[in-house]
């Protein structure tokens, strides 16, 4: 028999880097960037700091492997920084994580990604990652190179020094790796950065990619999301084996006490229900460690058969409809959109929240009528960019009949049109298909939940589309009357040799007949307008946006066909705001919407609007020349 050897975790990953997202030079760049950004965002959020990230990706030479470039990836954050002693563990040791198995919705979980990036740098460029870190306590920043000791699965600190850094705290990583750069498309760096901005409204991001202009995207929310602490486990999220192990930790308590203390959503009433569902009553007062092992299956089954409240929403972090609504405007000029944040549900035994944002972008409108929608997938607020077809999100989108909501679609494929579908799944335990976390496993539970969320968003979207269709229908009908009516009478007149008087009478009659049809179309349009306005009122009350109002005014005053219904907040100038306020108050007086509750609601919405205006959306393009000038200063 050949000799059995033992290898370190680092050795395993060093030989199987493709499993963690380093399967090609193209993916290596994206994965490295992704891991660095994820770590920075997690660190900032944990410390309650609004993240401000600077990303730079440059070609600095030729790569060591054939057909590759040497790429420098720098990510700088304003997070709490790391102590020198933590640097080798974080950047050079596999499975060293502060988050593993904690049941939180953080981006990173296992402590593999960034160490894999260091390994890739080491394997392709013979040098690990250069890290500069400063905590609040430090006077000067520490600068060091971290390598991975592959045999021992340890981080090695090299070239340690201290340097001046203006920042009070923060961290900067600098990778030089073999890779290739793709900016656009599904696996593109820009797609990643846009996606990250979308689901992180509190993020200010500055990026400098290749020779392109430097771009700064300011935050639209000052609320730093606190990753909620993990809650007690929900009984429905457990398997029998886990239940047994968990029970042994509470051996001295009675079963009823154990159930209430060790699980969330279990109350006295729940225990009564469990008894109804087969839990032997005598066991409830028995001390857990005295309950015979064989009884645990009965106990477990009775709990599984009992309806419980959904797991606590506290353990699941959401971006929120308001955040998504604001953030979506940072990607481009939005024509209209709909956002949905579902309540947490149990999918695959774990609490899961699905959020959907569907938006139509003006700049994509002309080009993308015949193209599939752009699908942005997120898992715990991290964009997923590869292996789209096998993902639960894609499956769910394709399984919906989007034609019902007014979008073009071939059977079982993505719908068509200039839309962006951003779909986010958040859960403390997302079932990924692989270690590189590119695809979410398509379980029936999750796909169904995704479908429901998307259908909800689709319903909102369909009101906009239906209104547009009705308006187009009315215009088409009016056009038909004008163009075909006279031609019909003319040709009939020729065949029967009718005189001008008879033709005129027929023309009048025709206009009457077709006029009735267009009146019906006008009625339909008004009804569609009303339905859309109700939706917009709800939306603006809920999201504190200017979103619907402007469009509402437009539709009320005979809006032109195919009207924009949502304008980005940044576009509303001060003058317009005043005019709009006057106009809206006038409209309010006219319509005499007297209900007090309604008025309160409106006032609340207005307050929110002004709040939204304060956090103006900015997308500055800083020219290189100006950057140089400030440097000199």
């Amino acid at each position, binding site marked *: 028999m050949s000799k059995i050897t033992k290898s370190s975790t680092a050795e395993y990953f060093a030989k199987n880097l493709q499993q963690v997202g380093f399967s090609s030079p193209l993916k290596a760049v994206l994965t490295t960037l992704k891991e660095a950004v994820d770590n920075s965002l997690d660190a900032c959020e944990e410390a309650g700091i609004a993240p401000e990230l600077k990303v730079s990706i440059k070609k600095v030479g030729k790569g060591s492997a054939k057909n590759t470039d040497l790429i420098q990836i720098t990510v700088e954050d304003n997070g709490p920084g790391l102590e020198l002693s933590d640097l080798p563990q974080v950047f050079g040791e596999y499975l060293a994580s502060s988050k593993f198995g904690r049941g939180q919705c953080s981006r990173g979980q296992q402590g593999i990604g960034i160490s894999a990036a260091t390994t890739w740098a080491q394997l392709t460029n013979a040098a690990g990652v250069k890290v500069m870190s400063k905590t609040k306590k430090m006077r000067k920043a520490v600068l060091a190179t971290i390598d991975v000791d592959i045999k021992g699965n340890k981080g090695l600190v090299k070239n340690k020094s201290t340097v001046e850094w203006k920042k009070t705290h923060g961290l900067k990583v600098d990778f030089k790796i073999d890779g290739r750069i793709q900016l656009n498309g599904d696996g593109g760096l820009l797609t990643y950065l846009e996606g990250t901005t979308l689901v992180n409204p509190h993020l200010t991001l500055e990026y400098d990619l290749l020779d392109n202009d430097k771009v700064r995207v300011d935050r639209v929310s000052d609320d730093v999301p606190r990753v909620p602490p993990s809650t007690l486990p929900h009984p429905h999220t457990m398997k029998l084996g886990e239940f047994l192990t968990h029970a042994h930790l509470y051996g001295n308590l009675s079963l009823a006490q154990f159930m209430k203390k060790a699980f969330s959503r279990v109350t006295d009433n729940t225990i009564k229900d469990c008894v109804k569902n087969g839990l032997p009553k005598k066991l409830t007062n028995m001390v857990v460690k005295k309950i015979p092992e064989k009884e645990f299956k009965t106990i477990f089954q009775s709990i599984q058969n009992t309806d419980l409240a959904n797991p606590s929403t506290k353990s699941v972090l959401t971006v929120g409809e308001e955040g998504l609504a604001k953030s979506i405007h940072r990607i481009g000029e939005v024509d209209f959109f709909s956002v949905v944040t579902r309540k947490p549900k149990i999918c695959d035994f774990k609490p899961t929240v699905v959020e959907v944002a569907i938006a139509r972008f003006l700049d994509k409108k002309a080009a993308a009528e015949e193209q599939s929608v752009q699908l942005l997938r997120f898992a715990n607020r991290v964009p997923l960019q590869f292996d789209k077809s096998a993902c639960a999100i894609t499956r769910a989108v394709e399984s919906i009949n989007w034609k019902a909501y007014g979008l073009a679609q071939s059977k079982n494929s993505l719908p068509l049109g200039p839309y962006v579908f951003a779909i986010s799944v958040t859960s403390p335990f997302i079932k990924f298909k692989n270690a590189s976390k590119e695809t979410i496993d398509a379980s029936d539970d999750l796909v169904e939940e995704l479908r429901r969320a998307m259908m909800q968003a689709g319903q909102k979207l369909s009101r906009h589309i239906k209104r547009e269709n009705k308006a187009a229908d009315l215009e088409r009908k009016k056009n038909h009357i004008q163009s075909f009516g006279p*031609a019909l009478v003319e040709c009939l007149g020729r065949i029967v040799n009718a005189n001008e008087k008879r033709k005129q009478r*027929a023309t009048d009659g025709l206009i009457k007949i077709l006029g009735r049809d267009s009146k019906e179309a006008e009625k339909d349009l008004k009804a569609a307008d009303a339905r859309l306005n109700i939706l917009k009122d709800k939306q603006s009350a809920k999201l504190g946006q200017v979103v619907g109002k402007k469009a509402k005014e437009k539709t009320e005053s005979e809006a032109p066909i195919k009207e924009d219904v949502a304008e980005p907040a940044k576009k509303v100038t001060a003058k317009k705001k005043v005019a709009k306020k006057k106009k809206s108050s006038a409209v309010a007086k006219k319509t005499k919407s007297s209900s007090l509750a309604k008025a309160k609601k409106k006032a609340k919405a207005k307050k929110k609007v002004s709040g939204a205006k304060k956090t103006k959306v900015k997308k500055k393009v800083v020219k290189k020349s100006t950057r140089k000038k400030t440097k000199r200063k």
Partner: protein
Amino acid sequence: MGKIKIRKLDKNVQRVAENLCNEMLDSLEKAQRPILQATKCSLDNSIYRPSKGYLVPGDKKVTTELNVSSVQKLSRTVFLLDIMLNNLKVGTVNSTRELYYMSKGLTKSDPKLKALAFSEQSESDSIINYITHLLEIYREEINCHAGDSGGKTFSKNLVVTETESDGTVSTVDLGAIGTVPFQPQNKPQQFKLKPKKGKIDFCLIVESESTVNTLVTNGFTKRNNCIIIGSKGVPSNGVRGWCKTIQDQLDVPMYFYGDLDAYTIQNIYRTLKAGSAASLIRNSDFSAPDVRFLGVLPSDVKKYDLESYDVSEKNASDARSIKKAKDALQNDPFFRDKKNKKISDVLRWLITQKVRCEQQALFAVNPKDPHTFEKIILDKIKRKDFI
């Protein structure tokens, strides 16, 4: 100069059309919506009469009421009707393509008619069909015909005598024109057919015109006392009418030979033999119910070891064709009738076996023998191996 007629029509087309337009104008004057009714030419209104052997229309009608959605169709209908009635009045005949271009010119030059412009010929063709369904007449009866397609005919023993509308009589001896084919036109023609001597043994209609050319080049018509016709895919009105004339005048066994696939059986063979759902009102004069299906038959694939290949449901077009075949078995009265059980069984066999075989597979049975194709065809006719 009398026009050549396909059938005896007991209505005055001009008057019927003018009455219809008068009623429409009357309704408009009263601000009432004119309502038009046309024969429904679709499968769900098709009835197969085994005694007649072709599809006839049922009682269903398509009702079109004037509203903003139908005003385009109705104004285009009246526009083309005006041109066609004028043709009828002056005795001019135009092809469907010519009508398309004529309408183009008229709509471009007259601002009142500008909106009626057709962007493709298929649009004007469908309006012409609607007019014929509306008036329940043949296209040819309103002085319009489609472009010629298919029907190249070869024989060494057939003499065709044609009488033109002005009374000119011309005789064509198909055996005396060398390799030049005789081709019927897609408009009413008056033929008198007779064999040069004796009786013609059979008439073979082949799906592919190029295969017909090859057979003739190899001397098929020199060795056999027969008529051979290329249908060129789905047979045009001209080919269908020509086959009916041969059937009616020569009393000769007629066979069709084409691919072994659902499309050939459903669209080509069925149309030749029993007409189509789209042409319900003219199937009586444009179908040849005596035509038999000679092949390729499923048994031929085994017997002659023909090269066949799989139809894959993963392929969109194949999947569509399988779906259509299933649909035909369920809904097409021709295939549902027990008289046509054998050909329906072939269709069923194609659906279950998911294979197809090209008509040209016969050439590959023995590549060293240029007459293999002919030998197999003759063998099949001799053995009465047809449906």
